[in-house]
């Protein structure tokens, strides 16, 4: 198979995009890691957060990371099969529950951050 096999079909292409989002996830983890090295140095910490190229990179990463979240949550019911007797718990319900959890977690984190401002 040629190395560009994933460009031949739309579903293959979207698959590769989904997989490559891990680069942005890993990249942001690296950013968080560097941020933790500056936790003892409030000036350096602020400098990192206000650095324009790093902000730009994060803005680019944001839609990629959202794509990871959406594809991951949408696929969850295929992996997590729950049974109630003879019936399977509706996959749609599981997906909705995942999105609700995501929303709640995001709101709670924002709330904590703003509580501390």
């Amino acid at each position, binding site marked *: *198979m040629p*190395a560009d096999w*994933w460009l031949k079909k739309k579903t293959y292409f979207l698959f*590769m995009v989904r*997989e*490559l989002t*891990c*680069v942005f*996830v*890993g990249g*942001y*983890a*690296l*950013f*968080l*890691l560097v*941020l*933790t*090295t500056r*936790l*003892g140095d*409030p000036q350096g*910490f*602020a400098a990192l*957060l*206000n650095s324009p190229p790093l*902000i730009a990179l*994060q*803005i680019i*990463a*944001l839609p990629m*990371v*959202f794509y*990871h*979240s959406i594809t*991951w*949550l949408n696929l969850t019911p295929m992996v997590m099969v729950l049974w109630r007797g003879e019936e399977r718990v509706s996959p749609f319900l599981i997906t909705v529950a995942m999105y609700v*959890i*995501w929303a709640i*977690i*995001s709101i709670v*984190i*924002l709330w*904590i*951050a*703003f509580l*501390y*401002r």
Partner: protein
Amino acid sequence: MAKSNEPIGWSLFSAGGMATAFFIPITIVLTSIVVPAGWIGAESLHDLLVLPLARLYLFVLISLALFHWAHRFRYVLVDLGLRNLAGILAITCYGAAVLGTIMAGFFLVSL
């Protein structure tokens, strides 16, 4: 029944995938929009992140995100044709994740 040791990489990848799906987007929003825009001061975020619970959050998130990247990226490279280097790729990717985890642990504990 344990025919292969893949389960350990896969469970880290899965845990990482779930954790990053839920927590990474809002964290990026915080560090790339909320703080630079000035809605929350960098000092306030700093004071929040030195709290023990926040440090634990950072450690777990960084580590799981790195292991998620490692497992997935290793397979991306294999899918792109580097099949023969599968072993080396695994060691390199997981090794980097382990290194990142140790570094995160070190910096977050030695505050």
